[in-house]
């Protein structure tokens, strides 16, 4: 089984690093999509089936917090697991994001191993749900 993954970050470098990390980790990917902010990401989510979202918090136009708030108001989108990848390290912020249903919080700079473990945990759960 392969997955459709969306990476949301205003930094093209970070999007490429996450993308490379997923490939190196051997995550089975069907389609990898990218968005430079929350607004573009919501457009992608409304038009394509996505299994997992990696999202930054600080982005122009629409940040990650607003994107997650909007996803949580949509019956289908709120079921998609979101992993935050951010430079922010505030425990208050991390707890706030977890309370909004975020599955995991990764601080930049991250290691490929961390991303790999998180993807395995989340997609493993998702895979089990589908069986």
């Amino acid at each position, binding site marked *: 089984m392969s997955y459709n993954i969306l990476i949301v970050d*205003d*930094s*093209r*470098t*970070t999007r*490429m*690093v996450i993308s*490379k990390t997923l490939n190196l980790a051997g995550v089975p990917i069907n389609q990898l999509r990218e968005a430079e902010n929350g607004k573009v990401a919501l457009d992608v989510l409304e038009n394509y089936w996505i299994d997992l979202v990696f999202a930054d918090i*600080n*982005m*122009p136009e629409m940040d990650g917090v607003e994107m997650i708030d909007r996803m949580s108001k949509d019956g289908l989108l709120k079921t998609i697991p979101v992993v935050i990848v*951010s*430079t*922010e*390290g*505030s*425990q*208050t*912020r991390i707890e706030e994001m977890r309370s909004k249903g975020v599955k995991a919080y990764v*601080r*930049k*700079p991250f*290691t490929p191993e961390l991303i790999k473990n998180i993807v395995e945990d989340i997609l493993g759960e998702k895979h089990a749900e589908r069986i």
Partner: protein
Amino acid sequence: MQNEYRMTFSKVFQEVLMRFLFMFGEGCDKDQLPLNNFDYLHARVCFNGYKRGCIGILAPVKLCIEMSSNVLGTDMEDDICTEDSVDTLEELANVVCGQFLTGAYGDSPIFSLSPPLVSETDEIAWSDIVDSDDSLAFMVEDTPTLIYLELEQEVEV
């Protein structure tokens, strides 16, 4: 810059260089900074919240291309490294800022960070920042690089 911030800022910059860009940076005396040209980029990120201020990084264009090459795992001659060099410097400033804030103030306060801004810089701007007490000098992969931290003074009421 206060000594406690100086140490934290310097340590964070070196750690992020190593972990994000796989590069080595060593602090050096500002008077000993060799300069061959002023083909430099200047990245700046400001923060707001428990404290207000900005951090900045001044790095030569060639070093920014090398940073991009390292993080993307591609050859420096690859066009993508030149195209992404500004983005990589922006992201470096963003990560250094985020790591500095938790290093200096702990993980309770929430800060909002501005989108990083990158501009070209010239000899005058470079000299101003070198002369400032808020800046620190590094040799990153044997290339002169400056970082600075500007903290807004708190007004006593």
